[in-house]
């Protein structure tokens, strides 16, 4: 049995756990704890080590989805989680511009750990306060070539679309590398 992994990262409360939960065939192995910080008490609990979801592809292959802890003090986990990943998804809460800078920092950190393909998922696009995708691209300083995808982490079809966009990016990157080598 072979296994591959993708990492779902992003700032605190961006929707990483919900994202994995929407497509995982097992109840995600979540490592959540009650929030202790007053500042971060916008939800009851948060991921302190990693979330762990699974999709069985066929009898020989399993895809694991790892969600990183969103709180800054657990960022020492990121390098460990990023090793060997096929690619990663940066979840950004479209309704909380105060987290955009942190999302950019996380993106750059993961790029430094592993220069693998990635997509940015603009989560909570179904909310009234959500920023428009074009505005988010400018705010996050994303290159036009980077895929910035609409997302609603609680919606399975939306999550599938984000995962597929990442897989297409990985394929494109492979083709590009082959053409350069040839």
């Amino acid at each position, binding site marked *: 049995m072979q296994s591959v992994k993708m990492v779902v990262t992003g700032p605190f409360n961006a929707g990483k756990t919900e994202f994995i939960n929407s497509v995982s065939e097992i109840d995600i192995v979540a490592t959540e704890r009650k929030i202790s910080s007053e500042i971060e008490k916008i939800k009851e609990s948060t991921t302190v080590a990693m979330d762990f979801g699974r999709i069985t592809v066929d009898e020989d292959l399993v895809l694991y989805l790892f969600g990183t802890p969103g709180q800054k003090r657990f960022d020492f986990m990121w390098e460990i989680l990023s090793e060997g990943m096929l690619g990663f998804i940066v979840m950004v809460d479209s309704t909380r*511009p105060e987290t955009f800078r942190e999302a950019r920092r996380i993106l750059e950190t993961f790029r430094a750990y592993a220069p693998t393909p990635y997509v940015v998922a603009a989560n909570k696009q179904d909310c009234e306060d959500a920023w428009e995708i074009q505005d988010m691209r400018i705010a996050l300083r994303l290159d036009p070539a980077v895929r910035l995808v609409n997302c609603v982490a609680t919606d399975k079809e939306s999550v599938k679309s984000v995962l597929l966009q990442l897989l297409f990016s990985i394929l494109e990157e492979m083709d590009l590398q082959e053409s350069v080598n040839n």
Partner: protein
Amino acid sequence: MALKGNLRDFTITQLLNLVNLARKTGTLVLEGPNGAARIVFREGKLAYAQAGQEDNSLVSVLYRANKLNARQQRIVRENAGNVPDKELGLLLINANYLSQQDILSSVQHHYYEVVTSLLTWADGFFRFENGLAPPAGKIAVRVNLENLIIEGTRRIHERQQLQDEIPSLDMALKFTERPGTNLRKVNLNVEEWRVVSFVNPKNTMRQIGRATKMNDFEIRRIVYGLLQAGLVEIVRPDGAPQPAAKPGRLPVSTITGSKEERKSLLNRIIGRIRSL
């Protein structure tokens, strides 16, 4: 959809950049601890700006720009009454008081200065309201935002440098114990004296900033000057806890594969995800 947030997380320079790139038309409303401001844009260019309750009538703008002297200003105010700025501008041009260029360049300079003064706002709320035009009767201009963005970036850079030099405002200050340092012989301005009067290991820089009504940027800039002059040094506040140790590393495992294998895997995964 909403374009709103806090200036702590999203600077005015970043907002100007966004408006410029997206060629937006509308009004950026800012509400900070020091007051409120409105900046109007038309297709990504600055059209109008107003900070707080400042008098930005055309007569005042022209007087500040030395296009009208005090006597002319008084005469125009007495004769013009409540005539809107646009009409007043035309009257001044027709009366050969001023040229169109004089008026436009003065108004442009005024709006530019208003926005420049806002660039150091590091706290407060913002919202962008699509399509809102300048107030009726006010003269709208078309000023490219690039220079403002560059100026804003320079100020942010200065702020970041100060932040690097003084990372935490939760530290305190104390006077250096060098013999021969006599504050009375040093030329300090009023703001520096206000800060100096609070220097004490019991007061954090943040508390000094609050007491002197200075924002983080201003208090850092003054403390940096005092540090460079060797008058003060940064110390841990009396009774503050020691910082915690960093956590240790966890074991690591790696997943690898050749290009062909990975490509095959990817196509299988794509098929599976589609079928979910």
